[in-house]
Each structure stands twice: as structure tokens, then as C-alpha cells.
């Protein structure tokens, strides 16, 4: 893993642990757009859901909403980047 990628992952980890959740979402979206194939966003989203999910807030027993969001974000971003100059 390059230093740049390591740095970006560190930023996301700090954001998950110390920043408000909306800041984490903004940073996550920015990192996915900036970094090519930032698949680590899915792993961090799983980490986030493991840490902060609550029993009772679910849809048919599914509680990993941020993971689902990260999957959608990752594939949408890669698709958009391939069609625009953002890649």
C-alpha cells in the first residue's frame, strides 16, 4: 500500500473515531472520488457498522446500512469516474 493510500485510510479512521458522522460521510465520499479504486471504503464502512450499530434499528434484521451505502457509493463513483474526467 502506498504512503498516500495509507494516509487516506488514516484520515478515514480518525474521522470514524473522532469526528461527527456527517463529517465521516463527507470525507468518505471525497476519498472515493479522489482515489482510484478506493475499495477500503467498504471495509471501513463494515468497521463503522460494527462499532456504531444498535439492536432494534434494522430492516428485516439487517443493520449494516453504512456498508450498503459504501457499496453503492463505491460502484457508482467508479462508474461515474469512468465516464467523466474525474478518473
Amino acid at each position, binding site marked *: 500500500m502506498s504512503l498516500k493510500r495509507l494516509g487516506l485510510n488514516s484520515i478515514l*479512521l480518525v474521522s*470514524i*473515531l*473522532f*469526528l*461527527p*458522522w456527517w463529517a*465521516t460521510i463527507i470525507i468518505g465520499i471525497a476519498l472515493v472520488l479522489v482515489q482510484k479504486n478506493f475499495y477500503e471504503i467498504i471495509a471501513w464502512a*463494515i*468497521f*463503522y*457498522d*460494527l*462499532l*456504531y*450499530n*444498535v*439492536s*432494534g*434499528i434494522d430492516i428485516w*434484521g*439487517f443493520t*449494516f446500512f453504512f*456498508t*450498503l451505502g459504501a*457499496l453503492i457509493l463505491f460502484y457508482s463513483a467508479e462508474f461515474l469516474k469512468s465516464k467523466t474526467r474525474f478518473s
Partner: protein
Amino acid sequence: MRGYPRYNRFRETMLQGNREKTKLYVKRTALIAVLIFILWYASLVVRPLEAGAVSVSGIFWNIGVFIAERFSAAGIFFKDKQNLVEENTELQNALRIAKTQTLVYEAVIQENEELKRLLGREDVSRGILGRVLSQPNRSPYDIFYIDIGKDRDIITGSLVISGNVLLGVVDTVYAHSAKIRLFSSPDTETHAVISKKKISATAYGQGGGVFEIKIPRDIEIAAGDAVMYPSIHNYLLGTVLKIESKSTSSFQSVFFRAPINIFTTQFVLVTDDLILKIEEQE
């Protein structure tokens, strides 16, 4: 196709590329489906991962608390002197008012304790102090972590307070930490009593420390009214912020919030009391 070798080569390359892309697409979709299946159904896999995530996070949170405690005084040097003088004056005035109110409050508490003693219901509160590791605004679900867990015999369902304000309940206990769910967490229902009118109701968490109660429109409620948790210990849930009612509805919505800033609370007390679940009363 005959006679067009360049086109044929191009077509072959495109088809090969498309086949590879399709294979990649199918593999990725299968991987995502397996991942979602595991996260959805395999709690045996998820629970240890959750405990691991909390343990790792606990290390960073403790480092964060250590740094915050060491450098909290540094901010004072950057404040303008005039601002500090004004702030000091305001705080002294507020303190004078608070001291007066405290005298009345203490007298009422003493009378309340005496009455309970006479009726054989002494209020002996026990609890364990916990340091808040992560603030509720880290997630949209109004939860936070404290630095005590199974090592201090914390159990799920214990009520968590700050002073006399009831904050929430212990949701999950780990080896050295616990997840606390605030009663204001979305989709959370809590027993509540609007103390002025002695009206029992169910408070629904709205997130961000805010609750909602729906009561009949003809009941008069004012901003600032106290909302209590039905318990021998007089736990305060919050004070009324605003009331909303529509002419077409026979109910009014009362929004209230805890009187303390849940986003800056540093210490909480985990009590011996267990939550009274809504379904137990029905």
C-alpha cells in the same frame, strides 16, 4: 465476416473485452452477495468482529482522551483577555442564580428523602463511574462508549445517568467497555411522566438528544416543564422545548431534550437499576 480483417480483429477484441468485463461483473456481484449474506445472517461471525472493532477503537479513544486532558488548558492562552473578563462576569452571575436555586432544590430533596424514609422506600443509589470514550455525535444513532465493561460487572439494561439526568441504557457490554444507547436514539421508546400534570406517556427518540411525546391537545403544557422517568429515584429525562399541534389532529406533539449537553458529557454513572421495558407493562 469475410474481407474485413481489421474489423474482424477489432470485433474480436471488443467481444473478448466484454466477456472479461462480464466475468468481472459477475465475480464482484457474487462477492457482494456473499458479504451481505454474512453480515445479515452470520451473527457468529459478526459478534467477534464487533468485539474486535470495539477493542481496537478503545485504544485510540483512550489515546484521544489522554491527549485531550493534557492539552485542554492550552486553549485558554489563545482567548482574548476582554472575552475572558466578560465570560467571567457572566459565569459569576449565572453562579449566583444557580446557588439560590440550589438552596431551594436541596430543601425539597431533603423533604422528599424524609418522606421516603417514613414510608420505608429509602433511595439508596449505587453506581459505577464511567469515562465517556466517544461522543454520541459519532453516529446517527445516539450511542456512545464508556471505559468500563465486564471487568466492572456492568450488565445490559442498566440505567445510565449524569447527575440526576437519565441518559440511556447499557446496550452491549464488552470486556473493558460498554455501548450506551441514549433514550433519544431513533426508534427508542421510553416511559415518561410529565411531572407538572402527572401524565404518563411514551417518549419516542428523535435523535440528537431530542424526544417526542404525543398527548391530547386539551392538556396544557409549557416550554420548560420537566419530563421525568417513572422511578423512585426522580430521574429527569428532559425539559420541554416546544409544542406542536395541528388543528386537524386531536393530539399535540411535545418535544423535549435533556438539560445537559450530551455531546460534551465526560463522565456518567452506570446504576444498579434496570430499564423498565415498554412491553413489560402491556
